[in-house]
């Protein structure tokens, strides 16, 4: 991640993760107030005790005694407020962060996301977005607070003894540099390799959990478990190296705290007069460094968090750059006003298309005209470009040449999805009820309408047997078979009543006998409402159901 474009992309994501100044201000001010209270508490206590030892009238001590109690109280109160305000600001930002990631994902799905496995999407989205929350909470705020408190404290000491202030400032800077160096170089080197190792472990676990029956049957379960153990061991080794770096930074802080006190005592001793006066001020100068070092101890931790946040931002920037690949259609075009053109003749002229990252076109020079109400079959073997065509028709993929719907170029059409629908090869079912899986197609539909549609796709009895529309379909449709998933997907498309419907391999998982019935139902419905149908299949479709048939070979229609 060195190129300027990448850095710009990272910065854009980081900016999105940072709450607005107005939102972080209360937390930040509380933090500074707390830090100052810590320093003031120790300074006042030291002054009080040494002054008291000089046995002045008690009256001279009451102010200090009140101050000590007040600072103690302030420390706890401001700490509580700081944590509350800063967390609230971060959580407010989380919604915007999540939706931003979703917004970047949307134009890419599905054609621009084919190289991401589910496991790494899980890591990328959940972990990285969570990590980005730390930007304000654990990076920006602690550093701003610590530096402000340190500067103000040094300034305060300078009022008492400029030389002591210089000594203190030097040790503070040395400590900041040393501890930051330890975390960034020693711990940072291992930190960078931590994320890929974590992903490796997640991938091994995912393969194990999802492939479990197969692994058991093939006698490979122990080996797969061993793979998890090895990934775990590699992750552990890296984590330990990192911990060692943290230890080093803690050690540097402890050492320099001691040296700062020694320095402050040596320099401050000149304030003590031969007659013994000046003792209280000397005690303040000698002991205050202890409190200041406590406050700036948060900096190395913050620097470490910064590195984690930065690499999460880099990962998100790499997966989801603002710039879309050229193979992916841009949002929009001109809004049509009338959502669906009245003329739904579909014309392809010299259409070509390519998958993101691919060298060659998957589709070349395709000519096709589908009249309203017509049923067209496109046959071909796997890899011939049939699914690419389906992706072009619903504008998941960008195309070359001309693709017109009712005479309007699809590229300039605001919403192709109002006209052209798709039943996917692998229909996605949401982990919800049958009702919810249908309703999002048309949320005004009544239960009666849903049941009629389910009957049309041959799922009426099945739904009744499972207790009606509230039956759940399971995670990724785990509780329904492949054929039932296809039927539900068809039901959704019927419910939406698309003028043009693309069926991508609808019979892949449906038994042959019912596929015929289903297609017949569909075509009957289509002719009554003027719907065109494009069936893409490697299976044969009985002749009376289809008006025209084409064959696809190596990306062209023949």
């Amino acid at each position, binding site marked *: 991640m060195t190129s300027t474009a990448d850095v710009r992309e990272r910065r854009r994501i980081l900016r999105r993760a940072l709450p607005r100044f107005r939102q972080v201000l209360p937390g930040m001010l509380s933090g500074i107030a707390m830090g100052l209270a810590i320093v003031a508490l120790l300074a006042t206590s030291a002054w009080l005790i040494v002054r*008291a030892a000089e046995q002045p009238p008690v009256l001279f001590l009451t102010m200090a005694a009140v101050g000590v109690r007040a600072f103690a109280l302030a420390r706890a109160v401001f700490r509580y407020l700081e944590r509350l305000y800063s967390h609230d600001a971060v959580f407010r930002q989380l919604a915007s962060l999540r939706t931003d990631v979703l917004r970047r994902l949307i134009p890419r799905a599905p054609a621009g996301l084919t190289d991401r496995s589910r496991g790494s999407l*899980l890591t990328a989205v959940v972990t990285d977005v969570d990590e980005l929350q730390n930007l304000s909470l654990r990076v920006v705020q602690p550093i701003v607070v610590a530096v402000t408190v340190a500067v103000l404290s040094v300034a305060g000491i300078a009022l008492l003894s400029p030389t002591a202030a210089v000594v203190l400032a030097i040790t503070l800077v040395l400590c900041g540099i040393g501890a930051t160096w330890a975390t960034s170089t020693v711990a940072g080197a291992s930190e960078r390799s931590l994320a890929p190792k974590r992903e490796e472990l997640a991938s091994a676990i995912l393969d194990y959990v999802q492939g479990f029956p197969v692994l058991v049957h093939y006698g490979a379960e122990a080996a797969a478990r061993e793979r998890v153990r090895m990934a*775990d061991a590699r992750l552990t080794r890296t984590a330990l190296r990192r911990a060692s770096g943290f230890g080093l930074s803690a050690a540097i802080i402890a050492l320099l705290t001691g040296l700062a006190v020694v320095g402050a005592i040596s320099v401050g001793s000149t304030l003590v007069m031969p007659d013994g006066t000046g003792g209280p001020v000397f005690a303040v100068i000698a002991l205050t460094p202890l409190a200041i070092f406590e406050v700036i101890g948060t900096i190395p931790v913050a620097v470490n968090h910064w590195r984690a946040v930065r690499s999460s931002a880099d990962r998100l920037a790499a997966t989801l750059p603002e710039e879309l690949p050229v193979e992916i259609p841009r949002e929009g075009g001109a809004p049509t006003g009338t959502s669906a053109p009245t003329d739904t003749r579909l014309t392809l002229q010299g259409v070509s298309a390519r998958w993101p990252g691919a060298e060659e076109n998957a589709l070349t020079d395709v000519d096709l005209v589908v009249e309203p109400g017509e049923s067209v079959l496109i046959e071909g073997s796997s890899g011939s470009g049939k699914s690419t065509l389906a992706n072009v028709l619903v504008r998941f993929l960008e195309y070359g040449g001309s693709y017109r719907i009712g005479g309007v170029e699809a590229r300039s059409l605001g919403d192709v999805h109002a006209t052209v629908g798709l039943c996917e090869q692998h229909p996605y079912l949401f982990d919800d009820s049958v009702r919810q899986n249908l309703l999002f197609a048309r949320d005004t539909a009544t239960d009666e309408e849903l049941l009629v549609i389910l009957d049309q796709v041959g799922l009426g009895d099945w739904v009744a047997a499972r207790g009606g529309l509230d039956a759940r379909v399971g995670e990724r449709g785990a509780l329904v078979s492949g054929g039932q998933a296809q039927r539900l997907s068809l039901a959704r498309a019927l419910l939406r009543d698309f003028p043009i419907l693309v069926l991508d391999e609808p019979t892949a998982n449906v038994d042959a006998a019912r596929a015929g019935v289903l297609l017949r139902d569909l075509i009957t419905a289509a002719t009554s409402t003027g719907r065109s149908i494009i069936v893409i299949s490697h299976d044969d479709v009985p002749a009376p159901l289809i008006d025209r048939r084409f064959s696809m070979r190596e990306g062209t229609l023949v």
Partner: protein
Amino acid sequence: MRPLDPRLLRYARSSRGFLVLGAVLALADTLAIIGFAWGVTASLTHIIDGASWQELAPSLGGIAACAAARALLSWGTEATGARGAARAKSELRMTVLTALPRLGAEWLENTQSARLTTLLGHGLDALDDYFARYLPQLIRTAITLPALALVVFGQDLLSGIILLVTLPIIPIFMVLIGLATRTVQRRQWDGLNRLSASFLDVVGGLSTLKVFGREKRQIDRMSSITDDYRRSTMAVLRISFLSGFVLELMASLSVALLAVSIGFRLVDGAIPLTVGLFVLLLAPEVFLPIRQVGTHFHAAAEGVEASQDAFEILDAAEAAPEPQCASLSASGDLELRDVTVVRDETAVLEHQSLRARCGSVLAITGDSGAGKSTLLRVIAGLTPHTGSVHVGGVDMTAVSPGERSWLSWAPQNPALQAGTVLSNVTLGDPAPDVRQAERALQRAAAGDIKLDRNLGTAGMGLSGGEAQRVGLARCYYRAQRFGAHIIVLDEPTSALDRRTEQIVARGLRELAAGGACVIVVSHRPALVEWADECITIGDRAEVLV
């Protein structure tokens, strides 16, 4: 969360040595703290008394030496804690993973895989805070706190009494607030899980949502879900942070109380300055460990909550039936007698009997949902059932799924693993045979797929049809290499075109001609035509779909 979870300690036996080492380091650190405070006190009083630099040198040197010692000890503490945590986490992770086989495939299928993957990966990582920070800090508190309190007592009785009164109040408050937040913590963890599941569901179904123009709506939904999460989390945090507040308040007020009381007694000349300064420097150190326990308590609680999910799995595994009996070698026909499978109180398969002969291909058809896949899983021993499975007349019902060496099964979802095509085709073979793997690929109409091709998680990088054929080759390889004579295939050609399907069908015939007993579940007439025999299951009125 309880301050100490005995189960967590029991499962993480190997971290104990590190905890002991941490205790030794804590003891040494306590001595260094006392030395440091004494050195500072001595130097200060010497200077105020107008002592010479010669008199001052030992105490200044002492400060530096103690600081160096503390530096070394804090590095050691960090390293020890991290090591202990890593051990504990790995041990728990592997214990859970080892328990999964006992629970079986059926249990695993009923669990959300995303949830399980999160738990075993990210979820257990939350235990870092428990083992590397919270627990060592608890031990440290047990050592440093009494030691320092004792030193203060020895120096100044009144200061000691103030500590004795204020210290116990802190744990009492912590327990009270901890009790109040326990159920809320649990809910929050559940909420986090739901949030990640719903995010993943939206991401997974994005293309479907786009087809229906519903993707924009998800943005609002995600936003409102996250906002709900913020509200509920903030409600928890307001209380959670309260315990931190009480800690801070008690600690700093106690120190203030001490300072003021020492100050007024110094005016009276009741105690010397040496004692006053020394106690003032030690007092915050008395509270520091207990404050840090509080800091780590809530972070640790999240890890402990995650570990509860792991314990639930371990408990379930303990309650699961004993492992089944070992391998029985057999040859001859496969026979199912009166097999019934009940899932969620619904009969998926009822009183099914069949016989598959060696040297022939048996096709099984039936409507989707009729239980065809379940039937094959019964043969593989992955689904609990009544009735029995026989091979060559030997009852195999009780043989574990991993011991059915007479069987080679190709499920509908090939579930390929990260690695090469070769490692997938030769899955479970300690000594892969490249030539046989090539032959298996060819028979599965996958001769065009190179053996050294690299695959990602879940076989990423292959198309659906390619993955299916690699899964088929894997099945053939096992059959040939280990002499599994019963071959069962679940929809082997559902993603293949007709020409490829013909090649696969010819492969099946070859296997049967070689004496194998081939059972193929399919709804494709072209494939069924090649079979010697075809049976339809679930052909009853109550199973319509």
